[in-house]
């Protein structure tokens, strides 16, 4: 009997020699809008081994619009996003908390969490039992990004240097909400909990690793500990050049990290983390995926494999089909991964 998707991913995460490299394709609505047929074919030929369950949250009365549509979108925290185009996300232009002294006005959206926990749990568990795929939580805590949505990017950055003025209080309020959210998900049969925050620019961390360790690392540690105490895996996404915190992510217990490998020195990443964490993709979205030459995709896979491949596990063949991506190159990427293992 071949291993199921769930077994493949689990074996990969535990370095227990999966039969093949598991796959995970991310789609921005942009891709399905621009290449509906190609996306269908790609998904049929290389089905993902990872999925997410159905929605079990209530709708917040605050929510208006669609996050992936051009125009205005209001989310469940009351943050107002302006989006330029269909198929991707927008940005908060007028943050709700202009003066940090008003941080207490932030009301985390506890009302959207399942009110009848048993019913919601049953629904999620049924989903998990009916699929052979590896199931990620549908929640995605993002304390730093949420902080930025509430305060605006530049205010948020400056707050980090003046933590006593309400930064720590607001961050704690956000974090407590996310812990409550994770508590629900760890009580279900999902295989893993996902969280995220973009921590890098193209060439460095956005904030000093010193402050990152002081204020943010403990939050991710809490998410990992809660996740592991229920025998689940911790999955994290973070964009940009984040090699200076890779070892910290390993240390707090992140099991799989989705990061911009091509911004970083993969040889260095291998030294820091190979065999200790699973590289959950990615293949470069900036230059490789938009390339019309499928060979660029193949070469990229070879480059990742050369540094990070380990037959015992630790690689999930993941990438995002997003703005400007080329379907032929995407096909070539999955084809090449099949040749590696």
């Amino acid at each position, binding site marked *: 009997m071949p291993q199921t998707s769930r077994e493949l991913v689990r074996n990969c995460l535990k370095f227990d020699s999966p039969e093949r490299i598991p796959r995970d394709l991310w789609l921005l609505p942009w891709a399905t809008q621009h290449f509906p047929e190609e996306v269908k074919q790609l998904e049929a030929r290389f089905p993902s081994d990872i999925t997410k369950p159905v929605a079990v949250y209530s709708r917040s009365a605050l929510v208006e619009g669609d996050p992936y549509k051009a125009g205005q979108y209001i989310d469940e925290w009351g943050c107002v996003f*302006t989006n*330029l*185009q269909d198929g991707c996300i*927008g*940005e908060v232009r007028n943050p709700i908390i202009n003066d940090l002294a008003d941080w207490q006005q932030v009301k985390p959206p506890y009302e959207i969490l399942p009110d009848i926990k048993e019913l919601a749990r049953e629904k999620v568990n049924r989903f998990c039992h009916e699929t052979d795929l590896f199931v990620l939580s549908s929640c995605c805590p993002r304390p730093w990004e949420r902080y930025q949505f509430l305060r605006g*990017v*530049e205010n948020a*950055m*400056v707050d*980090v*240097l003046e933590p006593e003025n309400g930064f720590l209080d607001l961050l704690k309020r956000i974090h407590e909400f996310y812990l409550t959210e994770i508590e629900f998900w760890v009580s279900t049969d999902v295989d893993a909990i996902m969280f995220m925050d973009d921590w890098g*620019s*193209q*060439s*460095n*961390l*956005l*904030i*000093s690793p010193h*402050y990152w360790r002081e204020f943010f690392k403990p939050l991710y540690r809490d998410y990992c500990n809660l996740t592991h105490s229920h025998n689940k895996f911790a999955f994290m996404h973070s964009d940009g050049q984040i090699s200076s915190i890779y070892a910290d992510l390993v240390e707090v217990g992140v099991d799989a990290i989705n990061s911009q490998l091509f911004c970083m020195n993969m040889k260095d990443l291998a030294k820091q983390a190979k065999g200790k964490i699973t590289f959950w993709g990615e293949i470069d*979205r*900036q*230059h490789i995926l*938009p390339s019309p030459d499928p060979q660029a995709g193949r070469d990229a896979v070879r480059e990742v494999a050369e540094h990070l491949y380990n037959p015992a596990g630790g690689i999930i063949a993941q990438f995002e089909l997003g*703005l*400007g991506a080329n379907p032929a190159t995407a096909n070539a990427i999955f084809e090449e991964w099949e040749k590696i293992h």
Partner: protein
Amino acid sequence: MTNYNELQECIIKGNRIKARELTQECLDNGNPAKEILDEGLIPGMAVVGKKFQDGEYFIPEMLVSARALNIGLGILKPLLEASDVKPVAKVLVGTVKGDIHDIGKNLVAIMLRGSGFEIIDAGVDVSPEKFVQMAKESGADILGLSALLTTTMTAMKDTVDAFQADGSRDKIKIMIGGAPVTTDYAEKIGADGYAPNAAIAVEMAKTLVGGSR
């Protein structure tokens, strides 16, 4: 002769309150605004840019220094204008059409302002036509275009082309930057320069206004 080390230090450390006090103190002691700018604020900001480039400073430190700088500049500005001191050059900056990423563009603007340039910020999602129009209205010497998405990089070319079509391309130098952008791309689209970070953007801007195209 006034020792400007302390004022420089305020900018480097991002100490807004002291930056205000010291700038005022320097003026009260009869120092010319231009000297305070050239000896205090600008050298302080140059250290900030260097520290950012060397990976010692990150975005928050840059922003805090920028706030201190702006306070100093705010005090000096009317005096500089009154004594007809001209900025090094006028730079129109903006993020191109379809793109909302502006952190990098803002850092570039900060460093340029802190090096004596006047900045006109067109914001994000700026169309080629808008850039042409704003360049004319402001009389900008340099245009700084930012793009963070491979899909919006092409709008940089459209913008260069729009200046060509308008017949005003030779009146303005165009420099470009942002995560996916490269020197090769700058050459390919007919821009005058590319800089990988905010500190180098200043050098580039100085070269562009210093030399001829």
